């Protein structure tokens, strides 16, 4: 029997998985590039990113370049740990039964 409870609920959505995957292999990623990589809308990315931020899995930097606001994202140490554990759990579930 597979224990689905052991999976991290925060990573259930494909968008959140996508955000975390990109941030795991890249240092800092801009909002625009992340949006294009994941092929999602502004609102969609913003809401999932803020959910991940709330759990301290990612950090959000907002700054101004000239007059334009620029948002960049970065994974935290906690986020790295949680996502690695999530990946290990996925692999484990796949191997069992």
């Amino acid at each position, binding site marked *: 029997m*597979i224990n*689905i409870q052991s999976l991290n609920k925060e990573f259930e959505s*494909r968008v959140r*998985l*996508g955000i*975390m*995957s*990109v941030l*795991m*292999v*890249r240092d800092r*990623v801009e909002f625009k*590039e992340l949006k*294009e*990589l*994941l092929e999602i809308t502004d609102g969609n990315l913003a809401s999932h990113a803020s959910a991940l931020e709330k759990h301290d899995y990612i950090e959000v930097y907002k700054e101004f370049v000239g007059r334009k606001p620029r948002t960049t994202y970065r994974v935290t140490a906690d986020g790295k740990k949680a996502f690695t554990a999530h*990946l290990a759990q*996925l*692999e484990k*579930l*796949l191997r069992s*039964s």
Partner: protein
Amino acid sequence: MAAEKYQYQEDLTAIRSMMERSSRFISLSGLSGVAAGAVALLGGCWALYLLHKEGRDYISHSAMAYSPAFLTRLLVIAVLILIIAITSAAYFTVRKSKRSGLKIWTAATRQLLVNLFVPLLIGGICCMALLYHGQIQLLAPATLIFYGLALINASKYTFQEIYYLGLLEASLGLISCFLIGYGLLFWIAGFGILHILYGVLMQRKYR
């Protein structure tokens, strides 16, 4: 349960592809290799022909003193080959990325270019120094070695196969160091034939 298992498999596949797509430049076309190789092959043979016409048999390297005017002509050909090869290689890669709907100018692209061109630039300056001191017999080995090192360095940001191409180019350069006088032949083998072979392999694997 089977449906869930499928879902996890899908998740893992999506994660892997997203990691690859965001950190590596995967639009490098095999045709770019073939085109650059063909240009180098033609250019190299042209240089061989010119040498032959000048009355110097390159293969048996009899009289190896070049007049400054002839040397300039060879250099112009070399620069021409470089420009045409880079342009045609860039053309096929841009075309491939457009066809597969991928963005061409990403952070991965920039990292690839910086990691490729920094060693190449250093090598280029070193080659100019060799030329300045009249050490033209070392030009072909030096270009092959520096190009190989540049590829090894850049391979972190694109296909793994580039690493092996780099090793082969650098090895040819090293062998050529010990067989002075056959530099142009090694140059044709490295920049012409190896590129074409690599391009054909990549085209068959990733199309």
